[in-house]
């Protein structure tokens, strides 16, 4: 029986990692942190393998239904409402550098932007994408152009109007975004990405013009503002699921299943740990065990 190409690649990668580990260990090169618990490495490995397996299954045709996320379904309603009112749609996904640990949130924001652009093309809505991430100006322009072109409305694409890079400095970006929301009298304000203290400023500006607001971030300190002020909000990890849903790509959706496996493992370990505590066994010690070698 011939093994699938993907499995061969996965095994080859694992062999390469193993060989590198052995070589670096023999040369006394510290490849792994001797302070991090081994369980973290094990969980990461499980998640990587699970992600690969589910994506491979998706490639072979398996689908992974995602539960309903009200904020995601509301995006279409917000855009349709803006068109009815003759007002533009505003979207933004934050400021700063994309090569930071916030990168996954920027990707989710870009995924939602792609969905919004497609819908704007479908309904003939004017889209204003403000951004404070200089590295993705070209990508944003491409996404918005693709949205209008795929809907057969190339005449609506005007890069100078649709894509507005402001600055990567937090409050200068915030002051310009709030002014854009108010001056353009936007009908829908869709903000998904990593946001900081500017989150409430955007929500308040949207509120001033009576915009339909959909917001989401995985930064826990800013979620309360979005939950309180926006009409619909993505709470935490929902933005990643929204990004995957927006892409409509089966393989990206399969990666959500791998994330769920991680959460499921966490639930099991917590419940198991609490039960084992009754018998006097501390699972915490096992989870904190550090493999010291070399």
């Amino acid at each position: 029986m011939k093994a699938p190409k993907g499995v061969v690649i996965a095994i080859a990668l694992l062999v390469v990692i193993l060989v590198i580990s052995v070589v670096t260990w023999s040369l006394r090169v510290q490849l792994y942190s001797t302070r991090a618990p081994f369980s973290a490495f094990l969980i990461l490995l499980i998640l990587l393998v699970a992600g690969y397996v589910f994506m491979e299954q998706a490639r072979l045709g398996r689908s992974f239904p995602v539960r309903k996320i009200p904020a995601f379904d509301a995006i279409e309603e917000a855009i349709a409402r803006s068109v009815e009112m003759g007002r533009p749609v505003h979207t933004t996904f934050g400021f700063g550098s994309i090569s930071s640990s916030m990168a996954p949130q920027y990707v989710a924001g870009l995924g939602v932007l792609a969905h919004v652009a497609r819908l704007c093309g479908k309904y003939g809505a004017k889209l204003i994408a403000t951004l404070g991430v200089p590295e993705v100006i070209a990508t944003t322009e491409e996404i918005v152009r693709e949205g209008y072109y795929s809907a057969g409305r190339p005449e609506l694409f005007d890069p100078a109007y649709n894509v507005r890079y402001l600055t990567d400095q937090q409050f200068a970006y915030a002051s310009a975004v709030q002014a854009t929301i108010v001056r353009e009298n936007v009908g829908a304000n869709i903000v998904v990405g990593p946001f900081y203290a500017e989150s409430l400023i955007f929500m308040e500006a949207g509120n001033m013009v009576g915009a339909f607001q959909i917001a989401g971030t995985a930064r826990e300190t800013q979620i309360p503002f979005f939950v309180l002020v926006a009409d619909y909000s993505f709470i935490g990890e929902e933005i990643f699921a929204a990004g995957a849903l927006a892409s409509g790509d089966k393989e990206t959706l399969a990666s959500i299943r791998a994330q769920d496996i991680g959460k499921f493992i966490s639930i099991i370990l917590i419940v198991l740990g609490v039960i084992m505590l009754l018998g006097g066994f501390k699972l915490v010690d096992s989870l904190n065990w550090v493999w010291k070698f070399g």
Partner: protein
Amino acid sequence: MISWEVLGAWISAALVVWIYSFAYRDNALYKLAEHIFLGTAAGYSIALALDSLNRVLIRPAVTTPGTFWATSWHYVIPVVLGLLMFAKYSRRYYWLARYAVAVNLAVGTGLALRAVPVANIVRQITATILPLWGSDPVKVVNNWLMVLITVGGLTYFLFTIFPRRVEGAPPSPTYQVYRALYYIGIYGMMVGFGALFANTIMTRVGFLISIYLIYLQPQVWASIVAAILAAIAIVLGALRKR
């Protein structure tokens, strides 16, 4: 004679008041303050980037080329990636800009991945494994809440693994447990968000008071000028409204 320091303080006070005036409505002075702020920030970013490029790459490559090419040649890679960004202006080669974005994203994702398994998974799990029985009732209640809300929160964020209810049939025990945990999770989070919200607002009010103290406390005339500036902004806003 007015010193630069005093002039700077006046300009800063005026900009603060003009920015605040947006709370009433958009006006010409807010626009002026916004454009100064935006222009300064953009200029500052460019200056910072050019300075960094000069310090890290251009100066060492020109002054000590031997040492640079022997030890720091890899700095050329980000420069090439940066230059690829300009490909967006070419209709034919615009796709090259994607490579620079892809590398940046990969670096960011890698950085996120490095810390997540320890900080967001293992440390969270170990902090939640708590004794649910004991002599101190307050601690026991606290532990129960901690465990239930954490498990509930995790259940809420399960997007593809969840039991489905069959139409017309009574809910299965698994479904009932799932729904109970789901609601515990969402209500627990809402309580947490409320506390976070109050905490953040408290900090913001602190900022507001400190601004008041800076501009209103030392000089009576400064307070009067600030009030006049605010009044001008409001009048301009009101005129625009008409």
